[in-house]
């Protein structure tokens, strides 16, 4: 057992005692009741459980929670699907996902949303050429499995958000 403290969607949690062998996914879902983060495979192969980890250096990355111990998140700051909208205001990505009918069952949506958000933030610092955009989105999202949609509308939604602000995301 060890006590962990972490920030989730800007809110401090802990210290909370966790078992060394408790996964972060179970910490979120069973301990905190935050079930927006899903469980799909338990093996980091579908990434429906991915959350955003914000590094103190200002960079962010998604990370599967099903294969990582909760302990590992002590002192970290993470974002989950529950934290994207603020004050009832959806992000551009959330709106685009809805407008494009990007998801169907929606069980993979949290993972796609987190991954696409990290991509947007990366492109702000490291923009890509327009010609490379589709491939950049493809590589960024390819770890995420979706069984319903054939992916088309997710990719179109993310592309739409980027093309709406080319100066922000593109070279």
């Amino acid at each position, binding site marked *: 057992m060890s006590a962990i403290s972490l920030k989730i969607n800007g809110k401090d949690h802990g210290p909370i005692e966790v*078992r060394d062998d408790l996964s972060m996914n179970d910490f979120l879902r069973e301990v905190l*009741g935050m079930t927006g983060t899903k469980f799909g495979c338990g093996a980091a192969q579908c990434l*429906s459980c991915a959350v955003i980890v914000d590094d103190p250096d200002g960079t962010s990355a998604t990370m599967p929670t099903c294969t990582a111990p909760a302990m590992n998140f002590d002192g970290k700051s993470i974002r989950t699907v529950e934290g994207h909208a603020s004050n009832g205001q959806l992000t551009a990505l959330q709106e685009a996902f809805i407008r494009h009918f990007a998801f169907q069952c*929606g069980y993979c949506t949290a993972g796609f949303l987190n991954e696409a958000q990290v991509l947007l933030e990366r492109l702000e610092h490291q923009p890509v050429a327009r010609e490379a955009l589709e491939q950049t989105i493809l590589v960024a999202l390819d770890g995420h499995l979706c069984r319903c949609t054939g992916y088309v509308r997710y990719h179109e939604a993310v592309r739409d958000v980027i093309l709406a602000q080319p100066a922000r995301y593109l070279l």
Partner: protein
Amino acid sequence: MRLSRRDFLRTGSVSGIALTLSKIGIPGAALAEQPSFFERETLNGAEVPVRGRVDGLAKVTGAKLYVSDFRAADMPGWPPQTSHALLVRATDASHVYDGLNLDALGANARPDVVVTAAELATSGVRVPHFYEGNLLCPVGTTPLYLGQPVALLLFETFDAYDRARTALRDHSPLRFGAETGPLPGANYATLRFTRVAGADGAPDVYSPLRDGWLNPPLEDSDGRPIWQPGPKTDEAYTRGAALGEDIRSALASPDAGLLVLDRNFETQSVDPMFLEPECGLAWYAPDKQALEIVLGVQSPYEAASAVAFMLGEAETAIRPARIDGRFAYIGGGFGGRDHTPFPLYVALAAVFFPGKPIRLAHDRFQQFQGGIKRHPFRIRSQIGIDKTSGRIAAFAGDHILDGGGLANYSASVAIVGATAAIGIYDIPKVDVTTVAEHSHGVTAGSMRGYGTLQTMTALETLIDEAAVELKIDPIELRRRNLLKTGGPSMTGNPWTVSVRTPEILDKLEAHPIWRKRSMHKATTVGTLVGTGTACCTKDYGTGADCSLGRVELAPDGSITIHTDSVEMGNGIGTAVARRIEAILGRAASAVAVARIDTYDELELSTTGDPYTITQDQQDAAAKNPRWVPEISTASTASIGAHVGTQASAQAARIIFRFGMWPAALALWGIAPADPRAFLFEQAFWQGEELILSGLPPLAQADVAAKAHEQEGVTGAIAHAFSRWAWAQAAFPIDDMQWTADIDALSIRRGSGSYKLLDRSFVFFPPTDYNRIGTSFTSSCGTVVRIEIDRASGALHIVEAYSVLECGEVLVTELVEGQAQGGFAMGVGYALLETLPRFEDGPGNGKWNLGDYIVARASDLPIHNLEIEVLPPVSPKEPPKGIAEVVMIPIVPALLNAIHDATGHRFRSLPVTPDMIKGVLT
């Protein structure tokens, strides 16, 4: 003959246990510190900020919605702590099970309760007929199949459960003894479908519809059916089978003018791989004798009924007097959550751990191990085609499908697969046999395509091969053989819906991918290029489909909808809301799906089995105005748009006609005798205003308020039933007889209570429609271009086009989304996904997504996939179901493209790069 999708007692109470007594959640009730289950599951389609899915907002914000999201603490009134159950399954089905050894579990990982076959044996628990077989494998017997449940371990705390599940995954607690080999089991179905058309348009000489489906009466010593008629076979079988044998003889020794191809094709076992593993939460409160159960299934009414049957004669301590079933949004279904045994184990966990809310949730290993699979088929096809005309003269098919350990839907899949064997074609002589076999593999059941994916893949690759042999363009060969509107299908009945295959073939032929196929082949350097096409059709509906709907209009114009259809991603909540928005003028502010408990006012009752009931029985039963052939059916078989929206839409029409329309007339000051009073069908909504030419637009809220003020109809609850045609009934409303495609109706006036109406006339579709194979069908064609790397055999899909038809399009994006998702699933089936059937397969508990490969975006032409939806034949054409057919032509089109690229015909699935490489070197 068609087997029932549910063949036990069905009434408002099953086995003496009252079902689902809970009422609609009361918003703002003082007791509720947190939203009730039903409040969470009822979504406001009007507050979605952009025009999207009704569940759009909930799904992008991570709202508690899916069955796997709920814990005891989320259920107001429940004890707050969640206990956890672990279902241990057999990893061996050829040795005697010797018992459970939990020594590997430390003291802090021990279950509090262990439920085994021994406990069940003395508990009075019954196995619902559909799931015939031991619920838990008894010690001293060989498990019936790989993955068969053996024990339920119940843990009070999550930590103990969590430790145990990890430990037991690494060290199986099951001990096995003597080798017995797999246990034999009877075939689940053996059937023969034979049709011989009359000459020159004369009535059929023989057809399944008129003469019946043939069941071979004899088996050989190995349990294989004997198809040949003989002295011991009865007259009915002999007559049909003799005609079938004639067809086969002619194909075996064809005359010179006939091209005969005789081919074998094999398909694999696959997993539906919906992303949310099966899961459930239940609490048995013995003091109240109430079992509350939260499930996520495609068949909620069946799940509740099955649980009630299971416990209906159990010993008092575990027999609930009441079961409250609550059904949540699910993370995908694809058929694999229709009639699964999983809910039974959720209920068992609860009743054997009284007082403790308990959760049973598969992880992915367990989902592979225990979840319903798609049937692998072995198919032999013989086709005879006139070399001059290109007309198909005869077809014979033989299907053997592996149903795995439990019967489940195997018989039904066999039938649907067999009756789809000639696809979109008109063939005068057809003889198809099918055998659904038992095996010790994981149980197979319903999955998108339902047998037709397998048989039409075999057919459409065969047609492609024939076209090459005959030197006829493959689209032209198809065109010459199309079944036309009104023509008899393989079972002898015509399709009763629009037949759009001629247009689909035209579209495929005109598409640049097809037109430029030779050019691409000639100009692409370095890789092999191939183009392939296929066109398929798939029935929608099961021949006994129900719809329940409850629609209410508030004085402020807001709309509430309840439907028994399940939201599994298909967008049923959105489709029903859009259909009703067109009728009642506003997006619904409360859409509740998967509700089976809010139609009590209809007082429905049923007897018999809708598939096997006789005409006399039906006629007698129909005299009871509460009787319907079936109360609620699964969300399956592509029925979302067609069936799932039906009852709600009909209820809404009644609210408009007898509530809003009279209110509008009053607001316009039009007298009842004014001719304009009858123009209700010409009025329409635009931007929440009711428009009738020549009159001032009326605000929807004003019309609603007036309807309430006038005590017009403001709420309606309806039931609809379809057996390849809607049941139709008339109801007395406002001194007139309202006739609609529903068979039960209750209405509310103003804010009053509901009044149940007796039908003054009812027509149920005749029972001999049960011998129809396919009547409602929709079609889809695909053309695809691929490139193959010579060195590695790697296949790249360059571009693809699918064209489909679905009658009225309720929501364009949902239809296109189905086609895009179906494309991906088709690619997975053709090229990626496979499961070994037995010991090395998923029943061993070791399968996950590292070994089972489903399509990722990088496997697909996501920016080069064109979907075209044909406009309806008329503005009044009803919606048709397409969620399955959109997957089917993808598979044969890819195989035909691979042949075009490599010159090789693969006749087993999936086709992997190694296999392709193997034929290139």
